[in-house]
């Protein structure tokens, strides 16, 4: 009866196939049709992909959204993961109250994204929001602005909120990475005279590479699939003036946009396929490249 062991993954496999593999393949299929969401139209081959990249305003919206995703990734890498690593390092060094801090930093993660969106919308409201009020009270009135209504600040505001939300998780991953470094290696380096920054750069960071690799790929996937917070705060139009549009929001708008009869499920599916390839290939490639740089111990 040993062969039965191979049946154990079956339930998971069935569910995975049904809800992940099958939709991906059907998206491939849908992307080849001209389809308004009510009745599947004619087979158009690769026309949807061509439209996506060459016809206005679809191509403009695509590059605009892609730029925002890249910006999303860069800011999250620097702000979210930078701060998270710093915090993880502090807790690793066992400063006073590190147990409490670990929980405190993780707190935002416990809230639903919709709640966070709502909360920050209130804080950033130009009329009565806490942020502008506080800026006014401390004599920085000229800094007050409609954060989410101004295209120069709206996207950055959303990304920073996302960072605030994500720091706790990133910190836990980094902390696990730091704690997996064998004590004796650090001890040996210390005996060899490594201290402070040298220790961090030459010993701790390289040994933490697996955690950093994982977090980079997580951040990349998250940044390229950014949707919930943008949708909760700015709706499906990526308002104002497409300044907060991301590929996932753009996809949602094309495939399911409601009210107006402008659903283009075929075109939306084509975008989903493109997005799938971007996320899939970049993740695989970076996993391959970064694994090579990890040191074995």
């Amino acid at each position, binding site marked *: *009866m040993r062969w*039965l062991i191979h*049946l*154990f993954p*079956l*339930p998971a496999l*069935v*569910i995975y196939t*049904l809800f992940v593999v099958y939709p991906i393949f059907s998206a491939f299929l849908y992307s080849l049709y001209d389809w*308004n*969401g*009510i*009745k599947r139209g004619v087979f158009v081959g690769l026309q949807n992909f061509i439209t996506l990249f060459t016809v*206005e*305003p679809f191509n403009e919206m695509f590059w605009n959204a892609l730029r925002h995703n890249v910006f999303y990734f860069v800011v999250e890498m620097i702000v979210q993961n930078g701060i998270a690593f710093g915090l993880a390092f502090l807790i690793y060094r066992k400063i006073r109250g590190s147990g409490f801090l670990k929980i405190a930093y993780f707190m935002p993660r416990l809230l639903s994204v919709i709640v966070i969106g709502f909360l920050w919308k209130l804080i950033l*409201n*130009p*009329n009565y929001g806490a942020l502008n009020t506080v800026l006014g009270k401390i004599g920085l009135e000229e800094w007050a*602005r*409609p*954060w*989410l*209504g*101004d*295209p120069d600040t709206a996207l950055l505001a959303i990304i920073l909120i996302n960072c605030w939300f994500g720091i706790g998780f990133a910190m836990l991953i980094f902390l696990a990475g730091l704690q997996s470094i064998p004590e004796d290696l650090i001890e040996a380096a210390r005996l060899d005279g490594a201290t402070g920054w040298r220790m961090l750069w030459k010993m701790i960071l390289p040994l933490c590479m697996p955690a950093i690799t994982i977090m980079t790929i997580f951040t990349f996937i998250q940044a390229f699939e950014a949707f919930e917070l943008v949708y909760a705060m700015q*709706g*499906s*139009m990526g*308002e*104002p*003036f*497409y300044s907060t549009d991301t590929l996932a929001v753009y996809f949602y*708008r*094309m495939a*399911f946009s*409601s*009210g*107006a*009869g*402008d*659903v*283009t499920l075929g*075109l939306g599916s084509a975008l989903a396929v493109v997005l799938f390839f971007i996320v899939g290939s970049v993740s695989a490639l970076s996993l391959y490249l970064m694994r090579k740089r990890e040191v074995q111990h």
Partner: protein
Amino acid sequence: MKQFRFRYVASIVLAAVMVVTGCSSGGTETESGGGQGGGQQVTLSMHSWRVEDTEGYKAIIKAFEADNPNIKIDFKPFKATEYNTILNTALQSDSGPDILQLRPYAPGITLAEAGHLEPLDNVPGISTIPKDVLAAATGKDGKVYGVPLSLNSTQFYYNKKIFEQNGLQAPKSWDELIATAKTLKEKGIVPISFGAKEGWLLSLSHGVIAPASYSGTNYLDKLLKGESDLKSAEFLQSVQRMQELIPYFPENYVGLELNDMRTLFATEKAAMFINGSFELEGIKKLNPDLPLDFFPMPTNDGKHVLTTWVDGSYAVNAKSKHKAEALKFMEFMATKKFGELFANQFKRISAVPGVSTDDPLVNKMAELSQSSATPYLMVVSFAEGKPTTKQTLENALQGMYLGKLTPEQVVEEVQKSAATWFPPFKK
């Protein structure tokens, strides 16, 4: 032990199978209740996107059920932004409701073109509804597919008390409107409660302002025949006027949404508020004592116009198992009795002509929508395209308010969008 392991595995496999089959049967099960039991009792399912109307419909449906004891109606509203997706999926899998609320104009008509709707031309009472109102649910084949429910109108609401205290009256021309706004601003009152964060409110406000620039249906006829286009002087002026109003908007207006605008007006911090008849109830709920009135838009030739359009209608699923009963309900919806129930329940203008309510403002809107109405152009004629021309206008106006586009560039964008699909422009 071995046997135990086998049972364990078998139960997991069985559970998995149940999950899978459970899903598929859940998908095909119809939601329309069907006539169970021998008493010839029929239950019709009715889908809508107006969750907030649930209570009101209870009263209306009760009145219908009293006259038709063998028909029960199960009113089921869905989240407005999800409604189209839910409805489309259900109709395609033949599990749609018997009666469904239909989006007005192009989006709803596509459902009729896909063969999902029953023609209603023979329903008694339908012919009493004006043709331009029926147009919102008329297919390209000329058949009527929905009983229109209500008209929406958009206008300038204003605070009577603030106007009186400052010796102001409802303006009779564009210059008077600007002068009024200027006076209010000098007195430290926000003249117009406005926000540019939500696109749909921009096209809605433009819908109120624009008809004044092209007074009369003369221009509209030319436009819809393709003898003029959206880059014409008339249309450009309407966009320029949207820009001219900027000094009279609240501070930081680019970051404000409907909620903020409504609050500013209801708490008497702002004197005017451009919005729809559908806002009436909401404003009154926020502040029941608000001295509220409205004025229609004054035109260049000294008249005034009220912008109107049909807001949804009800249709019958072509694959309904109880078509006869569903058609009975359609018949009811075209009666004056329904119109009155509806208008009083929701404080809206009924699509059935000659219906009056207990609310003087709604009555005034209903009267003006008979005597001096103009269609909301972006919804009635330009709600097609991908993205729609209406959406393009919304975004371009947002761009204008953010200082990224000039009015000339706005009309350029809008015309470019319309030219991709609007037959008279497609040359």
